[in-house]
């Protein structure tokens, strides 16, 4: 499970002086000025802080919402 705040913290961790709190959840990372290396660093940070394992091709996780949706799908549900 990943929270929205954890994603924002991960962005702030990899990009100093970037106002991650102001980033809309649906905003495309690239359009918001986060490049592919920021993206890779952010996913690694989330992996290390939350234990979430991202798929080999995680380039489509290009917004906060996309990451939250992915993490939601990975979370085991009660039956």
């Amino acid at each position, binding site marked *: 499970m990943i929270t929205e705040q954890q994603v924002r913290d991960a962005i702030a961790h990899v990009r100093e002086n970037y106002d991650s709190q102001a980033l809309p959840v649906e905003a495309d990372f690239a359009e918001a000025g986060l490049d592919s290396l920021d993206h890779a*660093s952010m996913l*690694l940070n989330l992996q290390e802080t939350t234990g979430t394992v991202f798929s080999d091709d995680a380039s489509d996780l290009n917004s906060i919402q996309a990451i939250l949706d992915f993490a939601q799908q990975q979370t085991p549900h009660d039956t």
Partner: protein
Amino acid sequence: MGKSLSMASEAFGIHAIGSYLPVSRQDNFALAKKFNFTEDFLCSKIGVTAPARKLETEETSDLCVKAFEDLCTREAVDPADIDVIVVVTQNPDGHGLPHTSAVVHKKLGLPTRCFAFDISLGCSGFVASLAIVKGYLETTGGARAIVFTADPYSKVLKEDDRNTALIFGDGAAATLIQRTQRWNIGRFDMGTEGQKCDALSVRPDNKLFMNGRLVFDFCAINVPKSVQRTLHVNDLSMRDIDYFAFHPGSKYIVDVLAARLGIAPVPFLAEYGNTVSSSIPFILKELKPAVTRCVLVSGFGVGLSWATAILRSV
């Protein structure tokens, strides 16, 4: 600086390095524009502004010969005294048979008693080859080896691939290994994560493919651990290291490694490109053993693999 650790029993080391960078350069500012990358991204993240490109007519063995010629301007090297040569490459002459080291052997007119073999490794190849060659010399009673590194990725680069076209440069180095007081070779830490080997590979179209995120994860996670293990087996600590010679895969990965290790930023010296297994000898060539006495070298990439070691002048 550093501990008075004796490496007298490990006296094979790097005595001299020759290199060759093709004169031709690719204009990465123009290419970055085409890819819609900003100049800031190119300079502050990629770090490669003018990767070297060999001539179409230059073969991998030709790059080796030119690096050897440069070596000979720095050190008297008698071909008759060389016991073994290796060529670290995954972009060999022709179709790879005969092995490129045999072609270099022919072009340099080396004696028949000089053995020659190729090592199929990428960016970890130079450091790994030090262990291989050192072992070869020790077990055969040899005295002198030359490690050639020449892996011209321009042979397999796709010009329109945003992930790779800006990064790699052509180049070669010729490193003379013998008993020396310059840089002795200490102990190693090496490993391979074969499950991820496809992340950096040449595909059936004979073009390079790189999953940048997987390669980045591999390096950021494994290299700092390898550094710590290497320090441990050499009975050294971080403060004993005068220079961290990380393979310059990109400026960003070098910056990330420094940050994750809690060390000062390491200068990125490869505006001419990531020359794969030649990148670390290129860095070492700029250092002075009398001043920079203890160097940690770490190469990482294709495999995915890493190789880390300590070099120490005495």
